[in-house]
């Protein structure tokens, strides 16, 4: 401890902002760990992160929190104000790192005498410039793929002359492989390279080593040059598929000792040469036919992989990395699991973990489903087992796409062309392999097409073979016990076994699954609980980090059946619609349980979360949130009850099933939850309490649909009961569109009815987040959307407290909420969405659980709604808050973050289905200040000069008229497409006409302006009348995304943003920490 940096009294930690593809919840986990480590040393912490839903932005975690954009301007302002001595750059992903590099290069860190704690910035810069980095590696005899840095197309073509096709293009300084791709001919090169250049001034042309094994090491180094590799990981998918898109196992499975330690030694050699102090990730390609290798990437910061490695091993990488940054040596720190051994060691695993990505590509129209060298997944899961079969089957259930494991997915996607799937994989590749076995493909056939190591395919075949054996039996009594046990050891769920053996109809499924459960319990076939202790049992550890396996003979832990424990069900994989917000809710429920002197038991399996940090709860089951597994745990723990209302929809859906098995569910009765979830039951309730709702009907023939529309008129919202590609929930505005929709949703029938709802235009959307106790509301927060109804609430810009609602509207919302809370006898959190048009209020949705906006409203009004709700659910006395939302002197604005730039060809347009991947929220003293900060936080910036407006329908034109005038007055150059141009000119607003994309010969053309980056902001409001406009609009929007020009597609948001940046310069924005807003 002699080199401890005792002069550091205050330090800034940079967060990663909104969750986006390639940069998600893992940085909430790593940032939180770093903050805990600093706090433990008595250092005052200042966190800059506009992601209000994170756990790190909580007062217990950081001393001062700034909900501001992580950009050099704002960080400098905070530095000026806070005068810290140190800064940590490695815990907020690429966003924090890029910001840190900019602060260093512009001399700001030096100017304010700020010390970077951890890896020196110059080392980071060296690793980020691939050319420099390749040379550094060469100097220490480490091989990288032949690669040439290029600054323009001509250089790129020359590089290919030298290396030869196939090649891969990579863009420097980007997130998760953005702009990367394989090219095997000149045409592909031209397309991909010009795209990559739009993201980065430098691209790399590299030799392609597609098909090699991909292996990663997580390496740690301290200032004494002590190095360890905490974990290695092997990709199931060979090189060519981004590691974020690949199934990954830890530790490696197919590497010999020589290969493992060769790559390990190289990792250490590299980290020493770079001079990392903290953590670093090294990715290798390993030749499957020799010990030859290439280093493909080094990240000198905490990463998604390091979060995974932490969870896979129990080694808290971010926590340790932060301590090392403060000057500790590894040997001076303790292993946080055993508490007696040193942190200077390499975890020994006695289990295998499997990471599987979660994609949501169905949410986007036009996007390619193929997976490859750039990342598209929005979340991931980690499963733990004592063999690969067990781990992969658990994992495939965890991703939550309705799959039951590797086999037994009867409602699975039809894979017409297995060949195509195997060679050009999509998000469904693993199920294509199952289907291939079904069609008698051999391990060798599948290997030849996929290049996935035969070992993995053999293991998958084991599962397949056992499923065939199960299917030969038709009753549980006839099923040999040995086979049943083997099935459980291979990770088969009771559901899968029921389906294969008992072959029930869908309606009988739940009953039959329980029959299997009862049968195996009677036979004594039960799972066991094992600890993750970092040392494979070598030292005794009091660890509470647990998983469940059938490959065992005894439990590692004992159970206290004293009625003092409470189970909290977490949120599972992050996905569009359910992410870090629910982790915040879960963690706060757990915190409250612990504060009340009860023991908290957390169940969750998402490695990117704080809730799966074993520090946070009394017991962590890193395991499935399936009915079967939750029942297993409830059977063993016999808790006081289970909380199902803080983890989003997955636990919410379990409520009724647990209730049917007489398992205590805390909070609102499971029957009432069912009443809210069931459209028909809920509708009846609303009628009973005289609350209005948009007219709707469940219809099963085309005629019925036409008749209903004749009654309510266009537009209508159509929701198929079953998602067909391109025919997800949609608003249909005219007969033409209806016809198009019905073509896609050809299968409208009694089995697959559609729900048609009248769609009210120009209506305000209002949300209420509340907590009720036995039907009586004890706290609530009402917020409004900037957008009119029709934009999914997850994609909407939310204002809290509402600024533009009539007092009368608010009064009515409160009254309706009280009625609903009473009608459903709510005890716990709930959320309701309503429409308001001229004080006419209609309920559109009600969830008897915490919602996405709970952390937002809780933090803005400084009243933790989850803490309150948890107390209510536990039946503990609480003080009823008397806070009124009208007392707030500040305004919070929550803005969505989109990741369209990662989703090739996806139409970046907002609709009734959610497409944002994350969000931020900023606080301001005025509405427009809060708007400005939020928009800057999700990547917008005040435009410099040129703005294109393509304003869509008449209403939007009107909406934008005043804003356009403001822009002209401010000296901006306005460009407009045909109709908008005419409209503006008629209204005396000066603007230049740009021709539509399909008028290619007519100049100036929109597409040229976008491609030449002559525009600083594109406002394109979709107009859904003619196909031609749709296609033109799509091309403008998509090109704006592909060429990295800020795009707004909603007139009300555009107008709010224009007002904001016309009123506020950057310098005018107040720099206030959260606790300064009273």
């Amino acid at each position, binding site marked *: 401890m002699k080199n401890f940096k005792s002069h550091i009294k205050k330090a800034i930690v940079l967060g990663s902002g909104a969750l986006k593809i390639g940069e998600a919840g893992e940085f909430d986990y790593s940032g939180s760990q770093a903050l805990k480590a600093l706090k433990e040393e008595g250092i005052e912490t200042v966190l800059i992160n506009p992601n209000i839903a994170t756990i790190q932005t909580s007062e217990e975690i950081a001393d001062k929190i700034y909900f501001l954009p992580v950009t050099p301007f704002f960080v400098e302002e905070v530095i000026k104000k806070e005068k810290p001595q140190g800064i940590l750059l490695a815990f907020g992903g690429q966003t924090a790192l890029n910001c840190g590099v900019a602060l260093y290069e512009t001399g700001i860190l030096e100017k304010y005498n700020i010390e970077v704690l951890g890896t020196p910035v110059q080392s980071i810069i060296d690793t980020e410039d691939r050319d420099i980095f390749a040379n550094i590696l060469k100097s220490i005899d480490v091989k990288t793929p032949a690669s040439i840095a290029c600054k323009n197309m001509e250089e790129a073509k020359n590089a290919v002359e030298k290396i030869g096709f196939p090649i891969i293009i990579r863009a420097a300084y980007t997130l998760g492989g953005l702009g990367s791709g394989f090219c095997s001919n000149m045409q592909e090169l031209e397309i991909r390279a010009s795209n990559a250049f739009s993201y980065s001034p430098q691209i790399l042309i590299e030799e392609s080593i597609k098909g090699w094994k991909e292996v990663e090491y997580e390496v740690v180094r301290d200032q*004494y*040059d*002590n*190095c*360890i590799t905490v974990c290695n990981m092997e990709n199931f998918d060979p090189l060519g598929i981004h590691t974020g898109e690949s199934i990954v196992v830890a*530790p*490696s*499975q*197919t*590497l*010999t*000792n020589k290969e*493992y*330690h060769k790559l*390990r*030694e190289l990792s*250490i050699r590299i980290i020493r040469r770079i001079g990392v102090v903290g953590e670093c990730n090294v990715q290798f390609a390993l030749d*499957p*036919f*020799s010990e030859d290798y290439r280093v493909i990437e080094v990240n000198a910061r905490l990463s998604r992989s390091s979060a995974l490695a932490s969870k896979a091993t129990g080694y808290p990488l971010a926590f340790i990395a932060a301590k090392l940054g403060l000057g500790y*040596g*590894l*040997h001076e720190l303790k292993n946080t699991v055993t508490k*007696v*051994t*040193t942190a*200077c*060691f*390499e*975890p*020994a*695993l*006695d*289990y*295998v973990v499997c990471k599987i990505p979660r994609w949501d590509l169905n949410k986007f129209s036009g996007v390619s489903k193929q997976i490859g060298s750039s990342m598209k997944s929005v979340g991931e899961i980690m499963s733990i087992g*004592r*063999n*690969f079969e067990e781990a992969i089957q658990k994992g495939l259930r965890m991703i939550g796409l309705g799959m039951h494991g590797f086999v037994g997915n009867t409602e699975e996607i039809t894979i017409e062309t297995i060949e195509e799937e195997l060679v050009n994989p999509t998000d469904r590749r693993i199920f294509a392999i199952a289907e291939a076995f079904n069609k008698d493909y051999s391990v060798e056939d599948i290997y030849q097409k996929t290049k996935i*190591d*035969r*070992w993995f395919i*053999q*293991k998958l075949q084991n599962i397949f073979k056992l499923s065939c054996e199960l299917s030969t039996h038709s009753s549980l009594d006839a099923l040999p016990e040995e086979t049943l046990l083997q099935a459980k050891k291979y990770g088969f769920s009771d559901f899968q076994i029921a389906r294969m053996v008992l072959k029930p109809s869908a309606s009988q499924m739940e009953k039959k699954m329980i029959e299997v459960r009862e049968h195996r319990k009677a036979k004594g076939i039960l799972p*066991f609980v*094992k600890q993750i202790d970092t*040392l*494979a*049992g*070598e*030292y*005794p550890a009091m660890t509470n980090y647990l998983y469940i396996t059938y*490959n*065992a*003979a*005894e439990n*590692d832990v004992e159970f206290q059946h004293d009625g003092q424990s409470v189970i909290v069900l977490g949120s599972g994989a992050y996905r569009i619609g359910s992410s870090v917000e629910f982790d915040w809710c879960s963690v706060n429920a757990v915190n409250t349980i612990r504060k009340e002197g009860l023991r908290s038991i957390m169940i969750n399996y998402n490695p990117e979360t704080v809730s799966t940090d074993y520090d946070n709860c009394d017991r962590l089951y890193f395991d499935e949130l399936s009915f079967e597994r939750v029942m297993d745990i409830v059977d063993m723990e016999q808790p006081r009850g289970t909380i199902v209302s803080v983890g989003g929809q997955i636990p919410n859906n379990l409520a009724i099933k647990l209730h049917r098995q007489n398992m205590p569910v805390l909070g609102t009765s499971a029957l009432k939850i069912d009443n809210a979830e069931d459209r028909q039951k809920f509708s009846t309730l609303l009628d009973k309490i005289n609350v209005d709702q948009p007219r709707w009907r469940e219809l099963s023939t085309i005629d019925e649909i036409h008749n209903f529309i004749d009654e309510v008129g266009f537009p209508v919202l159509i929701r198929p009961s079953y998602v067909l590609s391109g025919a997800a929930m949609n608003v249909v505005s005219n007969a033409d569109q209806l016809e198009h929709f019905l073509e896609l949703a050809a299968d409208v029938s009694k089995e697959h009815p559609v729900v048609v709802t009248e769609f009210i235009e120009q209506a305000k959307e209002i949300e209420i987040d509340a907590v009720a106790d036995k039907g009586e509301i004890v706290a609530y927060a009402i917020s409004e959307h900037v957008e009119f109804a029709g934009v999914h609430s997850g994609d909407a810009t939310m204002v809290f407290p509402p600024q533009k609602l009539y007092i009368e509207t608010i009064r009515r919302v409160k009254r309706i909420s009280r009625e609903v809370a009473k009608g459903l006898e709510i005890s716990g959190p709930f959320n309701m969405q309503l429409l308001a048009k001229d004080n006419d209020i209609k309920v559109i949705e009600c969830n008897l659980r915490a919602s996405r906006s709970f952390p937002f409203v809780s933090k803005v009004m400084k009243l933790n709604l989850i803490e309150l709700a948890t107390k209510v659910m536990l039946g503990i006395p609480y003080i009823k808050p008397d806070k009124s939302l009208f007392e707030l002197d500040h305004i919070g604005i929550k803005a969505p973050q989109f990741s369209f730039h990662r989703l090739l060809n996806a139409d970046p347009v907002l609709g009734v289905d959610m497409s944002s991947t994350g969000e931020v929220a900023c606080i301001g003293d005025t509405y427009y200040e809060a708007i400005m900060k939020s928009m800057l936080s999700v990547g917008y910036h005040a435009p410099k000069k040129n703005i294109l407006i393509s304003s869509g329908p008449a209403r939007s034109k009107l909406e934008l008229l005043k804003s356009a005038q403001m822009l002209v007055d401010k000296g901006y150059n306005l460009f407009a497409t045909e109709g908008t141009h005419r409209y503006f000119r008629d209204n005396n607003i000066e603007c230049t006409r740009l021709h539509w994309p399909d008028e290619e010969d007519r100049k100036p053309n929109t597409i040229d302006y976008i491609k030449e980056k002559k525009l600083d902001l594109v406002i394109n409001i979709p107009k859904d009348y003619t196909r031609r406009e749709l296609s033109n609009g799509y091309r403008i929007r998509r090109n704006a995304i592909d060429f990295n020009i800020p795009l707004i597609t909603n007139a009300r948001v555009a107008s709010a943003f224009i007002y904001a940046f016309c009123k506020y310069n950057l310098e005018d924005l107040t720099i206030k920490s959260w606790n300064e807003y009273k």
Partner: protein
Amino acid sequence: MKKVKLTLEDGTVFTGKSFGSEKPVAGEVVFYTAMVGYPESLTDPSYTGQILVSTYPMIGNYGVPDNSATRKVSNHFESDKIHVSGFIISDYSSEYSHWNAIKSLGDWLKENDVPGIYGIDTRALTKILREKGSMLGKIEFDDQRIGFYDPNLENLVARVSIKNTEEHGNGEYKIILVDCGVKNNIIRCLLNRGASVKRVPWDYDFTSEEYDGLFISNGPGDPAMCDATVKNLSKALEGNTPIMGICLGNQLLARAAGADTYKLKYGHRSHNQPVLLNGTDRCFITSQNHGYAIDRKTIPNDWEELFINVNDKTNEGIKHKTKPFFSTQFHPEASSGPVDTEFLFDDFINNIKKHKG
């Protein structure tokens, strides 16, 4: 398939499935926590007399490589046969996948007549060994009955050491390697550094021979069994010719210097043992396989501790305060395990260079 069971001396019985030879065996049951390297570990002579339990559950994944050799030293194995008495794991990969594999682990065990059991809760077994210490155990098939056997009562070194001297390489530094059950990678490490190695039996009297350096290898069992080696070593310690020892070699060097050794409760058998270079802040991750250790309190005054285990503070190496003698309890030659301390072989060669002048 025959039913196979493992019985521990405390009466605990584990039943599993066989994937090796169906020969009943008895020995000392020990666990190791390494995640890779079964071909290397199984052929490590230090495991002689022991039934090895792998805490890592999935074994056999990459098969077993061929038996080719370079400079009369096997390319892939640590000796010419499997030395463990039995191998106990949780999950066996009957099918394997690797470019250099030529057979499965099960077939290899059968060829060497060594039993292997899978389907055991190796974590539960490990916890017993951790709580009660390494203990005797036996593997039996069907109704076979055999007695327990304590390998530590026998001179195992005499069993695994070569019977006649052997020469390897023809480098400029002449090294006498006392084979107490040497791992091939020690020989490879010396040969790669320009040595010619004369490998001699454990009780060979080298004291009247000329050499540039003396190397005492690793080996199985209780160091107290190797009086002959200790006697020869004591004589060597009177001189100034560089000496290096590894593992059992560390313990024998200590005994020759006058220190005592003792049996650890369950030993160190893993790839993740942290050792601190005494008096510095340098910490290394090492590969280890030993059941005995030097009693730190008995190290004589003219010697000092070179390395210390950061976790349990046991001795991990000693050095003479003035002469070029040192040894380590861990395995700088690794194989299997991390290679971070291979530089110690360079130190040894440098000592030789200096000594030769």
